[in-house]
């Protein structure tokens, strides 16, 4: 900034100055030198501030985020290629793909993968459908609408641990509230702890209870953003309220639904606390027959109960790869949706 200014101030001093080639030639030659110097110091500071401050503002975030999220991600990959035992942390030896081969030939890994999938489906599908219905109801003009919304969200305030402890007691074999209620409908008591489907359903129900209200609020927000004239023209075309819901609300919510499906899938892939505490004393096994041992639980069991941190890292990276596939599928679906619209 200083150079052109000086060049303008002394147009005749030399031909070079006009073209800005000799920036230092003239300062102090007249009375304007001193203020120009102060100006340049200030403007330099100003420009430095403009340039550097964005980086200064994002630095704390990226330093902390990088150090405790991104770098560990890579280190986990590194450890997954090593033999790392909890009992001998200093003796880490290169193991190549042994941990992964080990996993692929382990029945428990495939069992955990299958359980993660089934529990994921049982917990996500009913949850999101219930959330959609609930959002639709919350979208009516209600007395005390805020109170309703807060009430639906209270399970979200309950931690995984607290909720699971309570549900475990509710699901107990004898004396449990749920079997007692079922008895009124003539249903025989279900062994929620030991049976395959029973235990998976019980674990899923905790997830459903905690997250339905949260997802309903997300749908509600999206519903409120749908332009009303869409409903008007649908009504003029003779659509009844169910048809409006089916042909206006659902298509308009499609991106939001896709978003919640992705988020729920991510949550389901890392499901851990619910099955751990549902299992009680030997929780990391996921039941006597490993019937509700999820991938997250299997990783914790291998890493911190068995003590094989290398294998635990490999399990973690398998989870990551699964999520990458999910993300890719989501991207494809998104693109196709956009094309079809």
């Amino acid at each position: 900034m200083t150079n052109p200014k000086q060049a303008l101030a002394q147009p005749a001093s030399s031909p070079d100055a006009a073209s800005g080639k000799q920036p230092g030639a003239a300062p102090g030659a007249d009375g304007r030198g001193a203020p120009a110097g102060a100006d340049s110091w200030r403007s330099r500071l100003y420009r430095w501030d403009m340039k550097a401050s964005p980086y200064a503002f994002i630095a704390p975030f990226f330093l902390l985020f990088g150090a405790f999220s991104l770098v560990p991600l890579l280190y986990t990959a590194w450890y997954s290629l090593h033999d790392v035992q909890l009992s001998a942390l200093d003796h880490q030896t290169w193991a190549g793909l042994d941990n992964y081969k080990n996993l692929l030939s382990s029945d428990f890994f495939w069992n955990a993968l299958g359980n993660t999938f089934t529990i994921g489906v049982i917990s996500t599908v009913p949850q999101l459908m219930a959330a959609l219905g609930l959002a639709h109801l919350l979208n009516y003009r209600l007395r005390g609408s805020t109170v309703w919304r807060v009430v639906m969200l209270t399970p979200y305030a309950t931690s995984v641990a607290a909720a699971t402890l309570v549900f475990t007691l509710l699901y107990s074999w004898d004396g449990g509230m749920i079997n007692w209620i079922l008895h009124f409908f003539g249903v025989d008591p279900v062994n929620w702890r030991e049976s395959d489907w029973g235990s998976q359903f019980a674990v899923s129900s905790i997830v459903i209870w905690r997250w339905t209200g949260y997802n309903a609020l997300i749908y509600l927000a999206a519903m409120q953003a749908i332009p009303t004239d869409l409903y008007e023209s649908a009504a003029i075309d003779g659509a009844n309220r169910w048809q409006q819901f089916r042909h206006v609300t659902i298509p308009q919510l499609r991106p939001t639904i896709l978003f919640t499906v992705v988020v729920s899938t991510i949550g389901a892939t890392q499901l851990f606390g619910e099955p751990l505490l549902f299992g009680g004393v030997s929780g990391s096994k996921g039941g006597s027959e490993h019937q509700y041992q999820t991938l997250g639980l299997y990783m914790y069991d291998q890493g911190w109960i068995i003590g094989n941190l290398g294998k635990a890292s490999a399990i973690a990276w398998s989870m990551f790869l699964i999520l990458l596939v999910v993300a890719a599928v989501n991207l494809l679906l998104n693109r196709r949706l956009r094309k079809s619209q």
Partner: protein
Amino acid sequence: MTTSELTLPTTAEAGPRRRRMLGAGKQLNAGPVTYVVLTVFALVSLAPLVWTAVAASRTDRRLAQTPPPLWFGGNLFRNLQSAWDEAGLGTAMLNSTFVAGMITVSTVLFSTLAGFAFAKLRFRFSNVLLLLTIGTMMIPPQLAVVPLYLWMSDLGWSNQLQTVILPSLVTAFGTFFMRQYLVQALPTELIEAARVDGASSLRIVWHVVFPAARPAMAVLGLLTFVFAWNDFLWPIIALNQQNPTVQVALNSLGTGYVPDQAVIMAGALLGTLPLLVAFLLFGKQIVGGIMQGAVKG
């Protein structure tokens, strides 16, 4: 519901009137059926929590009998006392308050700074960095715990609170949340005007950005506090019953540390109580925050 179905097949003269009614169709008054179904949802949401208090006021023996108790007994304070002392819930509540408090302050502060930079400042790689932030928002905690565990044991920090504070000081969600809010809540002209007046970036942050961001900072603070208070996987790996957070103490309870169901329920109740109080006081803001994040996310 019925009214709108009935008005549908009317003739064209009723057009304008019908249009107005249906235009407001989305905000139709809720009928009795809606209230009934919502009440069922509300009961399912609240019943387990209320029943926790019922069970916490009983004895272990009573809880093993059929039918299960449906109303309060007289043992609430004894059980709360046991949970507080024997199960370490007292220490745990103090620890969790400190841990969640530190995490909240740091997340809100750093997210606001970074969110402001992403929303309003131009710098190289800003798009790439923002995409990176969004893309990594969903990496499960499992991908970090093995290295974190190895580092923390190298540092000799096992069982100390900084092990659970440090890795959670910022979240990608927080930065993205603040960025989305500031993009539209903070007028760019305001920053430019401050610049013309010669304000440095720090002064702008203090006098322009923070005041504009305050509502979102409050909401992010609440969400972060809930998240930090309920965080489970890393705390149970890093800490044990000697120096627990609430979730670690509850985990110990669940794995038979104190084999008394009534005390366990008292523990679950105590550990949830602070958040329930927060929901009672700030429920509206928390609901608003989740809905806000949803629309823009």
